[in-house]
């Protein structure tokens, strides 16, 4: 179950990295939300799972409001991003399973891929909607790190993460006004 959730998290993050359209971005965000909520459920943090789910779902839904239309999943020039997503996945797998010890490898993998993929997306985007989606994903990822074992912040961190993620998606798009 947790392994599947972790895989879904990677898929979600990869979609965010690859997608350029609002639907694709919302899908990625949704997948990441589901994965993190699932992992929280699996860890017994039900309230945290709900908070993340609520915040993430709201963020995904709000994402559908703005941004470039469509899915934008296979835009020209997306191949390097696909490769990057795979590389990040492999590296995260190495760190989560080989280098680190103890239980909870899927959890660690999920943390790493969500944060790394959203960071990668932040570095390679010009669209406000894409950047905001990546930022919301990042919030969920950090919230997951805080709310799941062995961290102690628990529910509070999850609520803050959910609120931040939803709030980010709710913000209007901004265009530069010139110097």
């Amino acid at each position, binding site marked *: 179950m947790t392994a599947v959730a972790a895989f879904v998290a990677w898929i979600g993050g990869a979609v965010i990295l690859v997608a350029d359209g609002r639907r694709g971005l919302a899908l990625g965000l949704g997948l990441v939300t589901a994965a993190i909520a699932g992992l929280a459920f699996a860890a017994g943090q039900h309230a945290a799972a709900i908070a993340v789910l609520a915040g993430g779902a709201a963020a995904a839904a709000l994402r559908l409001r703005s941004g470039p239309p469509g899915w934008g999943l296979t835009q020209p020039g997306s191949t390097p991003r696909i490769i990057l997503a795979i590389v990040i996945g492999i590296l995260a797998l190495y*760190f*989560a399973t080989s*280098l*680190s*010890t*103890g239980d909870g490898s899927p959890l*660690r993998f999920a*943390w*790493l891929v969500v*944060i*790394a993929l*959203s*960071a990668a997306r*932040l*570095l390679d*985007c*010009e*669209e*406000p909607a*894409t*950047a*905001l989606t*990546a*930022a919301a994903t*990042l*919030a969920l*990822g*950090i*919230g997951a*790190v*805080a709310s799941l074992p*062995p*961290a*102690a*912040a628990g*529910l*509070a*961190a999850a*609520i*803050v*993460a959910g609120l*931040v993620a939803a*709030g*980010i998606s709710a*913000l*209007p*798009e*901004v*265009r*530069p*006004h*010139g*110097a």
Partner: protein
Amino acid sequence: MEPELAVALPAAGAAFAVALRPRPRLALILGAVLGAGGVAAVLLATPGAASNLLGITLSLSAAGRSMLIVAAISLAFVVILAPVNAERSALLRWGLAGLAGMAGIAAAPTLEVSVLVLLALVVLQATVEGGRPHARRLRAPAFAVALIGLGLVFARMAGPPVLERLAAVGLVAGLTAALGALPYMHEFDADERTATSPIPWIAFVGPVLAIVVITRTHELVPSAAGAVGAMLIGLGLLNIVWGCVAAWRTELPGAAWRYSFIADWGLAMCGFGLGVAEGEAGALLILYAILLTRLPLYLWSRQPMRERAQTDRPVNLLVAAALAGSAPFAGFPARILLLRAATSVFWPFALVLAAALLLWIPSSLRLGRTMGMPKGRQMAGIAVALAFSLALGLYPQPLLLLAGR
């Protein structure tokens, strides 16, 4: 409940100021009252005492509390003696938002929550209309959040010591990126409004963030303290040299100011990296000086810079002296503390540091000239900034005691 109020009241003040934009005077009054309430809450808060009013444990450390107080003083002083072309209510709006965020960062129970608050601030700032594209403005600070996040992930992993070191890399690099120091400098447009430029990160929010990140890093990865210190010192020296030389040689005066902040941060990073009390005290003094002197002076230099007015009157030279860290201004005791820390840790480093300290002079002379021929409110502001620097330089004890040093 002081920590909660310290976050909520400035946040409410900022919200009111946004909501009352069409009526700037009312916005200013309400914002000021609520902001003052927030500062009162910070003042009344007992360092280290936890409050759990909202189901989340909040507490302010002595250092964080002192930095919040100094930031609030800086904000009040900048708003009261606002540069002629700046709108006071706008300054207060963004200042209060920043102050609320800083209080949140400082009071948060874990670094993860602090980072989430930082992310919220980052996105909020990027949402304001600015000269640069939104995604670009978001890029560097959000990347910083991601780096800190990765650092936190590595810190939570059990395994070989290399993981703790990787965590240290994430946390230190993340902090550097959040500040916009080298090698993670944010894109900078000298003509951009201060509120939407990278300056608030390096000059306003940065000090509190640095205290929180560094304190938490020592708790999270205690065995990587050496690596953290080494990285901070390495990056610090890099920023000192680059910041000073670039501030001296770069073409645009606005960029020169930005580099000067970077150079100061380099010094502060060295102080934190040394890992001894004197070094930290020196770093804190540098940060206080950034908030109380360099940032206000930067704000008052913007108008003369636009008018390309450069002079060498006594006041320009005094400003140069204050910026250069010459006695009797704040930089000098900070440098004494850093030299002491470096001497007690590894004296050759003190030699390097002492040599590096001289790099401030040429750039400071240049920056002093950018103040133009100050008059009226600008002159008063500069005088107050210099007075703050002088007070810090001659008698830093009260603020250092406030910070628990």
